[in-house]
């Protein structure tokens, strides 16, 4: 018998209504539904969540670390993209 590893899934948990799902970790599972079970049993044992997403890790398209300079460095000297040049009028609470 050949030993075959179950596929890897990434697990995202929403901790409270209104917050967004955040990456919690990963699990191995034989299929999608079992991945959801395993994520529940592995990552929500201490009431960490109200919603779970699981995604096959191989379906995640990730940026290449070798391209970091082309991807991210051009933004570094564009300070004008931060909304820090505005005077906030008195009395504006939610900006």
């Amino acid at each position: 018998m050949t030993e075959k590893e179950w596929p890897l899934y990434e697990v995202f948990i929403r901790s409270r209504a209104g917050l967004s799902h955040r990456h919690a970790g990963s699990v191995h599972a034989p299929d999608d539904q079992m991945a959801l079970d395993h994520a529940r049993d592995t990552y929500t044992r201490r009431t960490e969540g109200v919603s779970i997403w699981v995604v096959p890790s191989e379906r995640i398209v990730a940026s290449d670390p070798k391209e970091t300079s082309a991807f991210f460095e051009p933004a570094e000297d564009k300070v004008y993209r931060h909304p820090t040049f505005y005077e906030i009028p008195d009395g504006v609470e939610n900006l």
Partner: protein
Amino acid sequence: MSKNDAVLAYVLRLADNALILAQRMVELVAAEPELEEELANANFALDFLGQARMFYTYAGELEGAGRSEDDLAFMRDGNEFRNLLLIEQPNGHFGDSIVRQYLFEAFYVHQLDALTQCNDPRIAEIAARAIKEVRYHLRHISHWLIRLGDGTDESHQRVQASLDELWRFTGEMFVNDDVDVAIRDNLAGPDLEAIAALWKRDVEGVISEATLQLPQEQWMASGGKQGRHSEHFGFLIAEMQFLQRSYPGATW
């Protein structure tokens, strides 16, 4: 049998089922085939242990003899335990454990559901907590049963054999005795005939989805509810009770 005696006997059965199944599952800790299943098994075992504690505590109060949950769990002899024979069957291989778990929990979920409506507020309260746990167990365990049955040739054959082997212990769940009748009539508790029909419907559904064959009608073993256990039980009890028997009252 007085009403209080029947309630005490019934609560002890619930407690013993939960404790003995927890003990069987604890035997599997660190022996599951995958890390994720390891966590699921240990979580489920702790769910049962928690249920057992609530039922034992209540049983101790009903008895009124000052026995604690630990006294009831660790200081009674084998023939005083009233758990179903199905529950004490050895773990066997992964498929055996899954089938044992499934056949019992498919019954237990309906038993608890009926108990949430019964006239004993304490039992109803414990049942309402426990049923949430058991509904999830059932989801997970039936996922496994379906995957093993509808998996490879080998997994199909082996889990079919597990089902055939354990089937003879399922009849006991639905055999009414004095205690069951008293609970049904005095507390508006579970009607075992109605539960048998629900259980059969659910089990047939999952077995068919798992592409397995329903075992044929056959002779059914019973006795656990009256304290007559199978030969495996003494070993289980010996291991479970060793510490409290050798060092009574030990705590940490």
